[in-house]
């Protein structure tokens, strides 16, 4: 839902225009796409059996089912790397939208309880409805993400001190601890812990084509929605009064944004588990490069989020073969210092 701001509104946005850098945005996008394609190629070619990049190329262009290498690429590596890319893009865009709408620099689907909510719902599904199809699982995952964020914001808004970024993060941590404990209890009781443990920590190794098939339409729709909303999110990021002053129906934008965030986070968690910090790091980096225009922030976050998780997955496989290091842990190694840096700045600037 776009809300036209009119010509008068655009003039008021002079300040914003100065702070956005479209040229840098285009360059960042092109560099990002090239980097993403290269790292996807690299990720497919490296592994237990090394495959040359040329073979990767022919396997994608002229797939012949008789060749083993082509089968490995087609059945295992390609869905895996695409899953990683999608997951990264989803988390990053969800984070960007959350940061823009709430003006909270510490917003991230992991920190604010969405991921653990979705993961909790999935643990419930595994335990009680093991035969549930993947289609219904991801629907429950959306519900779970909504549940998590609803509790966090509920506690935040009941607070005497109001919805400060720090308070929301603290509430998010407690809700994650609670849902994590409940999920773990269910997992231990129903002895599904072994299946769930690795998945909780984050891993895209199990991605199959049918996962991607079912997820793609959701993610595509959410991404289109995000791009349509991006202009309005830019206005909201200037402050709610300004957005209303410019004639924006902020409630419509907010509801739309929330739905998109829930779908993106829920979908991503259903593939990889509760991986945090992607949605925190990537939007901050892209904002640093392309300025404050959310059209560019969202599209660049899409590409760079995908790049980050594809690379993390590649590193996760290379560190300690044949074992795989959970990518959630790897990303936390970057995410925690980054979070500490933001928290130290006082969580004010955005």
């Amino acid at each position, binding site marked *: 839902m776009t809300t036209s701001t009119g010509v008068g509104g655009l003039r008021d946005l002079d300040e914003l225009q100065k702070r956005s850098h479209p040229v840098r945005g285009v360059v960042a996008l092109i560099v990002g796409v090239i980097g993403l394609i290269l790292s996807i190629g690299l990720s497919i070619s490296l592994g237990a059996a090394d495959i040359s990049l040329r073979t990767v190329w022919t396997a994608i262009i002229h797939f012949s089912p008789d060749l083993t290498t082509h089968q490995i690429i087609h059945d295992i590596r390609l869905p895996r790397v695409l899953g990683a890319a999608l997951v990264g893009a989803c988390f990053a865009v969800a984070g960007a939208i959350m940061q823009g709408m709430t003006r909270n620099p510490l917003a991230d689907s992991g920190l604010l309880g969405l991921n653990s909510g979705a993961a909790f719902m999935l643990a419930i599904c595994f335990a009680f409805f093991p035969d549930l199809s993947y289609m219904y699982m991801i629907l429950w995952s959306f519900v779970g993400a909504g549940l998590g964020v609803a*509790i966090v914001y509920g*506690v935040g808004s*009941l*607070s*005497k*001190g109001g919805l*400060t970024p*720090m*308070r929301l*993060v*603290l*509430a998010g*941590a*407690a*809700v994650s*601890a*609670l849902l*994590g*404990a*409940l999920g*773990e*209890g269910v997992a*231990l*009781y129903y*002895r599904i*812990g072994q299946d769930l*443990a690795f998945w909780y*920590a984050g891993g895209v190794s199990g991605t199959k084509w049918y996962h991607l098939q079912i997820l793609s339409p959701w993610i595509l729709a959410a991404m289109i929605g995000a791009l349509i909303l991006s202009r309005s999110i830019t206005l909201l990021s200037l402050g709610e009064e300004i957005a209303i002053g410019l004639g924006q129906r902020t409630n419509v934008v907010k509801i739309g944004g929330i739905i998109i965030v829930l779908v993106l986070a829920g979908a991503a968690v259903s593939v990889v588990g509760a991986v*945090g910090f992607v949605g925190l790091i990537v939007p901050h980096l892209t904002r640093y490069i392309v300025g404050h225009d959310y059209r560019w922030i969202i599209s660049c976050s899409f590409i760079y989020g995908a790049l980050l998780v594809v690379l993390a997955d590649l590193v996760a496989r290379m560190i*300690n073969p044949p*074992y*795989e*290091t*959970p990518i*959630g*842990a*790897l990303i*936390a*190694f970057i*995410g*925690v*210092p980054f*979070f*500490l840096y933001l*928290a*130290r700045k006082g969580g004010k600037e955005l």
Partner: protein
Amino acid sequence: MSNSFLTPTQQKSKKKNYLILGTLTLLIVITFVISMNTGVIKLTPIEVLRTIFGQGDAQQQLILFEFRLPRIVLAVLVGMGLAISGAILQGISKNALADPGILGINAGAGLAVMLYISFFPSTKAVPVYLLPVLAFVGSGITAILIYTLAYRRHEGITPMRLLLTGIAVAAGISSAMIVLTLRLSPENYQFVATWLAGSIWGSNWKFVVSLLPWLLILLPFVYSKSRVLNVLNLGEITAVGLGASIERERRWLLAASVGLAGASVSVSGGIGFVGLIAPHLARQLVGAKHQFLLPTTALLGGLLVLLADTIGRSIFEPSEIPAGIVVAIVGAPYFLYLLARLKE
């Protein structure tokens, strides 16, 4: 302070406080008996009592003295250690939400123990007496790290930033632990996973013996500092006025808190929120004076973990839910409640 200086109302509240301490002890004893009866093999309370006084048969003695009793004793001790650790943290930082689990101190202890297990994988050879020492080193380093990261010139340490830093550091440490667990063999992995979730896994007298000296030294030490804690509670300026050398006292108390948390975690794994809940409940019961607050907190902590362990074992028979998970299910909502009431 002798009784003759007390007004009648103070005398009365003192009486009430002793009553509360007595009631809590009684509750622990009751839970103790229930917990003794919990398990696959049922024993009646009479049989339990008879066995305790040396009248039971060999099998009953084995079950009670070698499996159930050490576990129960350990649960109570761990609960006491964690609860007092939290009470100290809340006292010296004037931060209502402080808890060794939330602040990442438990995670640091856990990491040290895990590093040891992953580099010296033969678990049988682990000298249990070393575990609390290792955990103390780990939790001490973590506490220093968190303090340094949260400290800012001019502002010092605000409660919110301390908590956020602690949570983030804990997140980092637990990722490090996840990476480490993958290096372990499957059986070691299963063991570590249960331990991390906060199970009273050391159903063995050795662990009781390795934890006990820490509590025997540190708990009386902390109790002897009750007056200092009371003064610190009044605020820094008052404390300086009353002549308490704040920084030194604070450092000693912090070290005691870290030691208690580390030693407890080394035998119990990650049990969070005990150090949060117990002091708050105790304050509701007996007020803010540490002479009564500390013993009440210790008893409440012991009761809490023992209850959690008993519930985790009895409701879900024959499988078990670690005590840490049961406590978290109660503790996390309580944290949210306190957070909502906290003013900036």
